[in-house]
């Protein structure tokens, strides 16, 4: 990508994207270059403004709802509706099925979703006005529901990419919204959302145990259908994604601590859409580190967040959503094999092949990698060499940024002193 020219300095000046892209993800204009080159590329791919031409919007929502975080506790909320009817819109909200699609297909799908919005207090979820009640009903469904929305203005593309949420298309203020179809509600969803004495955390875990798709659970949580009756709230989509990853992760973490340690080092690798995820399991107590690098320039920065075996109490504020999105599949994997391990996740994004489309890709790439075959090694050196072979540049730079690696093998166990 673009390199700032060197003037009068021997020291290499980093390019703008190298310093900030991995934090900004194209929507905070941190680099000061406007418009964001990443965004421009995405925009060019779809002719967004032609998607909807008048104020009545009919279509089948996948179903999908977006709750903004700006202005919390007064937020913009509304269903995302494509100007298309039919079952095939379901795919627009199924990132777990996207890894084999192209970026252009994904952007095309997501940008045809019109984001409708109304300003509501987050507390209105407990006693919803009509439009919100209709939106909540739609959110219960596991399949697309035909619906009709009357907009106050023509949809306009306001260009928001996010590091956490899925992207969406043009947005418009919403006047009225009604479903033309009955939602198809899975039994556990009906049971848990209608239980107004159940805490949100317990509701989320219940849905997880009943095999409800995570995307669906996140949607229910976000539109305020989980939790104790009076305390139900709208939850900004971005927060709901990480909250669900974290709540399920915490419950699996407790189980994993009881399992015996793995005996070898294991490496699992997944690649898709310009992203590489390498997962290294260490024979140790549970500990986790998410390392992320946005490949740009010759020495891209590597960011890290980590936790020791008791888990973390504060938010992973450096790697943010990607931390929780990869910790969950790692824990799911350990629960499945009934073993305990330390886990290092190396996440690498090639910005020439990727635009910021949300953290889902790390979660899904990790899940796919862990459902396949991994490689076993008896030494740390061999496993690190394997990790190296899948990353661009030298693995040494990653290891230098890693706290888990620098600590690994330094803490002795009491068993050595019997």
């Amino acid at each position, binding site marked *: 990508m673009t390199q700032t020219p060197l003037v009068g300095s021997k020291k290499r000046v980093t390019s703008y994207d190298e310093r900030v892209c991995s934090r900004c993800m194209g929507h905070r204009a941190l680099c000061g270059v406007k418009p964001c080159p990443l965004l421009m590329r995405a925009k060019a791919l779809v002719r967004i403004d032609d998607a909807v031409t008048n104020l009545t919007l009919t279509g089948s929502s996948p179903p999908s709802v977006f709750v903004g975080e700006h202005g919390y506790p007064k937020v913009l909320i509304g269903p995302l509706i494509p100007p298309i009817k039919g079952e095939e819109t379901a795919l627009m909200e199924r990132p777990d099925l996207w890894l084999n699609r192209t970026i252009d297909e994904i952007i095309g799908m997501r940008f045809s979703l019109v984001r409708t919005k109304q300003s509501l207090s987050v507390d209105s979820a407990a006693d919803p006005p009509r439009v919100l009640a209709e939106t909540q009903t739609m959110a219960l469904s596991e399949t697309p529901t035909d619906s009709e929305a009357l907009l106050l203005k023509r949809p306009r593309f306001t260009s928001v990419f996010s590091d956490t949420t899925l992207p969406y298309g043009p947005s418009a203020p919403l006047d009225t919204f009604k479903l033309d179809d009955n939602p198809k509600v899975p039994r556990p969803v009906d049971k848990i959302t209608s239980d107004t004495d159940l805490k949100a955390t317990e509701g989320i875990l219940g849905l997880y145990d009943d095999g409800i798709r995570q995307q669906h659970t996140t949607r229910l949580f976000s539109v305020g259908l989980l939790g104790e009756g009076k305390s139900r709230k709208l939850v900004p989509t971005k927060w709901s994604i990480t909250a669900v990853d974290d709540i399920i992760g915490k419950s699996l973490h407790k189980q994993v*601590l009881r399992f015996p340690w793995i005996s070898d080092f294991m490496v699992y690798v997944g690649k898709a859409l310009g992203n590489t995820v390498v997962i290294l399991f260490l024979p140790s*107590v549970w500990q986790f580190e998410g390392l992320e690098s946005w490949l740009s320039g010759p020495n891209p920065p590597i960011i890290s967040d980590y936790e020791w*075996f008791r888990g973390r109490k504060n938010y992973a504020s450096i790697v943010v959503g990607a931390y929780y999105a990869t910790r969950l599949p790692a824990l799911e994997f350990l629960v499945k094999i009934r073993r305990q391990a330390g886990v290092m996740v190396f996440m690498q994004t090639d910005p020439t092949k990727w635009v910021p489309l949300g953290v889902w890709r790390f979660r899904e790439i990790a899940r796919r990698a862990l459902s396949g075959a991994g490689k076993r090694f008896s030494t740390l050196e061999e496993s690190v060499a394997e990790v190296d072979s899948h990353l661009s540049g030298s693995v040494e730079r990653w290891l230098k940024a890693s706290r888990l690696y620098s600590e690994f093998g330094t*803490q*002795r166990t*009491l068993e050595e002193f019997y």
Partner: protein
Amino acid sequence: MFHATLDSSKTWKQIIDALATLLTEAHFIVSETGFSLRQLDSSKAAMVDMTLPAGVFQEYKCDGEYDICLGIDELAKVSKRMAADDKLEFNLDEAEKRFEIKMLGQADRQFKLQLLTPPDDRTKKPSLAFDVKAEMFADAFKQAVKDVGVVSSHIRITADGKSLTFTGEGDAGEAQVSLKSNEESSLFELNVKNKSNSMYALNYLAEISKAITSDSIVIQFSTNKPMHMEFAIAEGGRISFILAPRVERR
């Protein structure tokens, strides 16, 4: 049959808080002589070893030996419900596999916690001989851990005949806390057979030092060997933590 009463809910809370620093399950063994517990934490780097003789309790009856294995989260939640002047009563319901905790105060409240399956093996204590034994105010130890924690993620403890020194270094710089053994010092006993120095992970020590509720603490260690920290609880009870050393990367 097991039955015990304890007049101080504070003591019980302190015990549960101390166990919660390292464990997710508490595996008590109750016998005629009292309560005991010895467990490794999940990382196997630290151990907690506790003895509460029958004399700690006001009433104590136990015929035989029982494993009482309970979830720490559940125990902690129940202890949070205890009022300061509640008297406690403990019973074991073998048939229902429940551990009963009664709080007798303004109201009589009763909690029954489900027993978990105890581990197959009982944890043995590593056989350790120590070169250094030091007794000091618990607060001095806590402050030293906090001081070194400002710059470092580990703490090196060095003892020679005259002083006990805590040092650490990190990216930000270095820190050093020295305790001399003299009249004025918070270190009131220092016994050194051989000069020793050893390194321990700060995250464990930070947790452990939070659990210390007594005024003084005895620490024992040797070069590159585990450290033993012991303090008293209630009348005649004691809790020890044993922590394996941290070493330079192989």
